[in-house]
């Protein structure tokens, strides 16, 4: 409580300098917010290896948050309260606790925007700076400090910031993580040059600079009978430049990022610079859309703590170039970003077969996607020094060369067709190659997983309020856990109720004791902005990935309750 009062006093003091009178702050303001509560109760399940011993008394987990936002004209203030008592299984135990996780105050005019407290920010595609929150991963790398945004001229947007990143609940102390400083400039050329304002070709240029300052402790290395000390940089800078050209249905975006020498736990303390290039080209017109993308990442882990190996304190974000699937079997082998090196490309075509013999009564939507990720080629810097040797430059790598090792590939074909006013179907085929060794942190232990997945999803509207959805999935693979079959039957009583039963059966597991059913029964109720859902059943273990950032989800058996609401 005392902290909250100090916080409010501080905020009031800061904004006393701004042209906002206290009375105006109170009158005419609006308060909004949203909440989410996720609770799980766990059962023992010997088939899943969950016993009283492995649970160690942890029978339940609760993750919850509430966002409150106060807006009054140009002024906005907000806070985020979070509770993990204890964290649900699969989330870091470091989250355990209950408190105000983030707060901020923001003042915005056409010329300037000032933010103090916690804020989320992204420069370009995020390759040198992105702070964001992803609830399903338990991930939050928000910056706490101050941010200024300026629009000094028409078409010019400048940003500057300084802060430190959230690390669960750990308070910032001198030396326990770095300080992040950054600046970004974006130029909308067509707005800056009046003669180009009507041009069909739009050009946006951008440039960013980010620097991390971290107080270093000494780090030593024993090699043979000798002891060496690493020369560790305190300030680690990164730069990025980007270009976006839009004309008609065409859109080209490209960003190049460069990071100075950044020896860290993530790269085994090598001194090579980091580089990344991310480009996409898309074209769309009525009934068809095409997207091509290419990416190179080389030694681009960038964290605000040198020794950090957990999925926290990332300063940057490396956007994935692989299709984000929705169906559960297609997400069983997800791609996780490899910041130490990857070469990727992706192509997607979406088109509509018009009404007619082939397209049917309402037309048919087709989506085809292919993506592939390989390693980068790494060459020894010197005879006798293995690639990635600590305390060296690490390796050299030709910029445009693909490595020989496949990390991931994904081909998918989805066809969506409406057969009548009441019946719609979505069928799909996915073929994935998954380098389990690399993508789960092993070496020489597992063969690549080759998986074929078939999906059939049919929805029948029985009348204006009632709908039935049947989803079937099949996964065939000779590796890993073998074949699966799954089905979901969902009944919706619009607009308030739904219920479903589902099962995923691992009938192809080589271990007959693990040929298990992962059954689930769910029900939900929606009332305006409030939704309550209850689920009982088994949870399959695996990786949950959002944007290439992953969290391990352990197997579980129990009841899950989710409540969301907003006002």
């Amino acid at each position, binding site marked *: 409580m005392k902290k909250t009062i100090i916080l409010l006093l501080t905020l009031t003091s800061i904004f006393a300098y701004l042209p906002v009178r206290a009375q105006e702050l109170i009158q005419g303001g609006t308060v909004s917010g949203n909440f989410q509560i996720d609770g799980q109760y766990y059962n023992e399940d010997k088939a899943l290896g969950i016993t009283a011993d492995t649970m160690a008394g942890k029978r339940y987990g609760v993750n919850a948050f509430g966002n409150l936002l106060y807006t009054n004209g140009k002024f906005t203030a907000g806070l985020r309260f979070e509770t993990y008592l204890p964290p649900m299984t699969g989330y870091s135990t470091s989250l355990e606790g209950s408190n105000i996780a983030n707060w901020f105050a923001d003042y915005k005019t056409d010329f300037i925007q000032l933010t103090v407290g916690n804020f989320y920010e992204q420069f370009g595609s995020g390759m040198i700076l992105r702070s964001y929150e992803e609830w399903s991963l338990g991930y939050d790398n928000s910056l706490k400090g101050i941010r200024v945004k300026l629009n000094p001229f028409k078409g010019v947007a400048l940003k500057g910031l300084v802060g430190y990143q959230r690390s669960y609940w750990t308070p910032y102390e001198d030396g326990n993580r770095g300080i992040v*400083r950054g600046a970004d400039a974006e130029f909308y050329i067509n707005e800056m040059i009046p003669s180009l304002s009507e041009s069909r070709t739009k050009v946006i240029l951008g440039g960013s600079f980010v620097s991390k300052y971290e107080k270093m402790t000494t*780090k*030593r290395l*024993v090699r043979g009978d000798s002891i060496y000390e690493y020369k560790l940089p305190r300030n680690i800078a990164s730069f990025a430049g980007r270009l976006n050209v839009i004309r008609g249905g065409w859109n080209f975006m490209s960003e190049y990022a460069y990071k100075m020498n950044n020896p860290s736990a993530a790269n085994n303390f090598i001194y090579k610079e980091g580089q990344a290039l991310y480009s996409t080209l898309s074209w769309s017109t009525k009934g068809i859309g095409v997207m091509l993308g290419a990416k190179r990442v080389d030694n681009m882990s960038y964290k605000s703590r040198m*020794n950090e190996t957990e999925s926290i304190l990332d300063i940057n974000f490396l956007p994935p170039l692989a299709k984000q699937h929705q169906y559960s079997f297609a997400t069983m082998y997800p791609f996780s970003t490899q910041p130490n090196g990857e070469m990727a490309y992706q192509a997607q075509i979406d088109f509509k077969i018009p009404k007619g013999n082939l397209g049917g009564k309402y037309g048919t939507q087709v989506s085809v996607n292919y993506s592939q990720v390989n390693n980068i080629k790494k060459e020894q810097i010197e005879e006798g020094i293995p690639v990635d040797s600590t305390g060296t430059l690490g390796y050299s790598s030709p910029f445009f060369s693909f490595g020989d090792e496949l990390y991931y590939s994904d081909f998918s074909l989805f066809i969506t067709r409406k057969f009548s006013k009441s019946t719609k179907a979505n069928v799909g085929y996915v073929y994935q190659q998954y380098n389990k060794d690399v993508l789960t*942190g092993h070496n020489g232990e597992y063969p690549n997983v080759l998986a074929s997945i078939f999906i059939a999803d049919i929805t029948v509207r029985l009348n204006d309020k009632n709908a039935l959805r049947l989803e079937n999935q099949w996964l065939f693979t000779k590796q890993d856990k073998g074949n699966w079959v799954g089905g979901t039957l969902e009944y919706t009583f619009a607009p308030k109720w739904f219920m479903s039963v589902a099962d995923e059966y691992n009938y192809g597991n080589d271990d007959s004791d693990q040929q298990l059913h992962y059954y689930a029964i769910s029900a939900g109720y929606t009332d305006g902005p409030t939704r309550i859902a209850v689920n009982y059943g088994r949870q399959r273990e695996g990786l949950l990935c959002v944007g290439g950032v992953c969290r391990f989800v352990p197997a579980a058996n129990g009841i899950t309750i989710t409540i969301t609401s907003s006002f």
Partner: protein
Amino acid sequence: MKIMRQLLQKTVLLVAISALIWACDKVDEPYLSATNNPQPVTNTQKVLLEEFTGHKCTNCPKAHLEAKNIQLLNPGRVIVVSIHAGFFASPDGSGLFTADYRTDEGTEINTAFGVESNPTGMINRTKFNDKFLQGTDSWQGYVESALAKTLKATITLPVEWNSSTRSLTINPSVKFLEEVSGKYNICVVITEDSLNSPQKNTDISAGTVPTIDPYYHRHVLRKAVNGVWGESLNSNDGIAGGTTLSKSYTFVLPDSWDEDHCSVVAYVSRMDEVSEKYSVLQVEETHVVESK
């Protein structure tokens, strides 16, 4: 064109100002500088490094190497106890990984400190950066922080070994050099070194991949002689400076344990409900056979 030129000038200026304000440190070769080998220090603060490990943990051999390096960097001052517990330490029914180094005490410690993955480690059971468990790359710095603390107690740890009965008589004695507040336990454990069985591995700098065989597991926790959390040294709060408290234990080594590779480790840790709960004040190690 004029606007574009001005724009370019402003951008260059902005970047230049940014670079000046936030200078970046470019490190040139050589990236490592040779330092003097450390000299052994006697009768001073020692540190307990507990590493949570398992034979199916692929990143653990690299962590084992780091523990060894830290011992070499601080000769005689870092005592390692390897706790095999949890998923990565579980034995398979058949195949390469049938060895079982798990102990009830290790599992209890593993659970109590919420170990979720391996490798991870604890330095003097003290929170650094608000947490007990630390990643391998953080061990070195935190060990050095712990070693730099003021010496408050010393432990003498005589061990009598009777080879005919395989009996150990352990007589730890703790001398408090200054007054300390709180309640303390002394915990005595047995470790065994050089246990040979395969170990999974992902790092070629640590050995062959995906398995190192033979692999000699070091400092393996075998048994807590006086209970997982030890025995109380003081029932009332605080211990006066100059006080010496002694205990005596006997323990019979099972036949399957190689006495030549066994050690006795004793440590004093705080046990009352304060933020420093569990923190280790001092630790000592005596090899069983050397004590003959």
